């Protein structure tokens, strides 16, 4: 699907560009500010490699632009104003489905009492576990609260790939810096 190396390269380019944009605005930054700048640029770079095709990237950008300080930078970096509507609006299809499904689930759950033989206790417990974990996963994923099961798994897939690429790029950066430090010749 996506070549991991090209993803890494793209991410690095955009990240560096974002950092430079940030630093062009403020000359001397404290450690925390720098950290924030790096993190923000990394987030935006990661999200823009997906080019807003995935839900989590949209959510990431939306979250980044929500905060007033970041908003200007975000716009600057991305070169356009982020979509004004909130993330929730973009998931109208899914929210409708989830509302219906949640109603149906409560309906089913109420009715499940009536047929104890078909659903054993073990399967009920398993279902509860799965629900708990999906809730946790949704909390981890940016913009994940509004996704239903299928898209959640897809988005997780994508997100994991991007995170992996990001981690590797950063690791390269750190090792490069170490090399440079120890070998100042």
């Amino acid at each position: 699907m996506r070549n991991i190396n090209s993803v890494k390269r793209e991410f690095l380019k955009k990240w560096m560009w974002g950092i430079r944009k940030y630093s062009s605005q403020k000359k001397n930054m404290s450690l925390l500010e720098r950290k924030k700048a790096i993190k923000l640029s990394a987030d935006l770079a990661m999200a823009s490699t997906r080019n807003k095709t995935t839900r989590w990237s949209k959510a990431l950008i939306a979250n980044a632009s929500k905060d007033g300080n970041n908003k200007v930078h975000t716009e600057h970096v991305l070169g356009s104003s982020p979509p004004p509507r909130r993330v929730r609006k973009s998931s109208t299809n899914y929210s409708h489905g989830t509302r219906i499904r949640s109603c149906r689930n409560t309906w089913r759950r109420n009715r499940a009492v009536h047929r104890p033989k078909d659903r054993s206790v073990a399967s009920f417990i398993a279902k509860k576990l799965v629900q708990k974990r999906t809730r946790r996963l949704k909390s981890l994923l940016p913009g994940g609260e509004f996704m239903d099961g299928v898209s959640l798994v897809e988005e997780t897939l994508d997100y994991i790939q991007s995170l992996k690429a990001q981690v590797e790029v950063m690791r390269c950066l750190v090792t490069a810096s170490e090399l440079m430090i120890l070998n100042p010749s």
Partner: protein
Amino acid sequence: MMHCAYTNGNMAGDMTVLERQRARMKLQEEQGYFPGFNGLFSSSLHPQDSFMLPADSGCALGEVVAQAQAQARSMNKPSVPGFGASSSISRTFSCPPALVDPEPEPRPTDSSIGKERFKKRKPDKPHNAKFLSENDMKHKRIKVGVDDDGESKITGSPNSITTNTNSNRRETCADTSNSKQNSKASEVQNQKLDYIHVRARRGQATDSHSLAERVRREKISERMKYLQDLVPGCNKITGKAGMLDEIINYVQSLQRQVEVRVRCISSFSSTLIYPKFMSTPFHLRGYQILIMYIYDHYMQFLSMKLAAVNPRLDFSIDDLFEKEGFPACAANFPNIGMSSDMSNPAYLQFNLPPQQMVSYGGLDTGINPSDIDLKRTMSAHVSGPETYLHSSCFTQMLPSSTWEESDFQNLCNLDFDQVRATSFPSHLFSGLVEAGNHLKMEM
């Protein structure tokens, strides 16, 4: 094939669905992969036992499919066994010749058979089947590369889509979680019963709902299969809850790693760096030159140090890394203005995860083990056997740094393109060293 039609002709009305499935399984195991389709076709078309499909030609099969479809449409709905099956076949026959993959699939379409069988009973079943097929095609196009790691081309993707669909369906049928099997089996019974006693059962959700539910569940489990390939260590775990757990842990660990690295990078990037970020423009050409410079530099150093250093020393340094007390480093950190607890775990994590990363596999290039070696050798060289490496490197960091923003990129490109790095022409070295000196003078 003979067996298939025969048994189905015999047991058409008497067997339950499960028994039919089991018979089909047996047949298909005997016959190997391809007659999965034959089995699907002939078993589901049991009224039309005359369809003896040739074992090889996909085109012939396609013709037969068309015939069956024409016939099936003429039949009335409750007894139209072939319609659902043929719609599934039409989905899989989007590229007929390529479907004859030499992949053994002993039970390729069991679950699809089962599913079609239940779909037959629904008035909106064709719609469901087509909808499912469209969605699957769409989603599989995205997901194909995950499995093959970028190997599959666009032309190849429909093949893997269909085989994936079938294999996933088979796997979802055969997965080991008891709850799923129980629920599936019971739903099999329920479906059959629901069809027959459709009014007698009070209150249960109508069949289309549970059908949609099952479709959704199977989609989810398909995606979970992809995730299994992506997340390391997930191969042994079956069942949704355990895999979700692994996925959650993995995502959390990745996020934590990103966080740690961001912190480390931010601590590295002192005020010396940002002016460079601003000043050096994005010249791709310059990067390529620098790649070579850095690589040259790197490899020379590495080869020198690897030759010189005793392997035993490496281990002792590692032990020191692990056991070295934090107080030794803490004294150095205040000059940099970092909190010690922030950077020490960062550094320990930097040393240890390279080994972990290698075990995570798949994405590590060959440069990374040499990274580890390089670190060890550097430590041996710079600090001697006692002191903690990174404390000394931190004190050196602030006064002088020959850091160049483009250097990072090049080093990263080294990791990315290992092949390019290894095939390195030596006649460029001299020019590069000059370029490197020039850059240093800039700073």
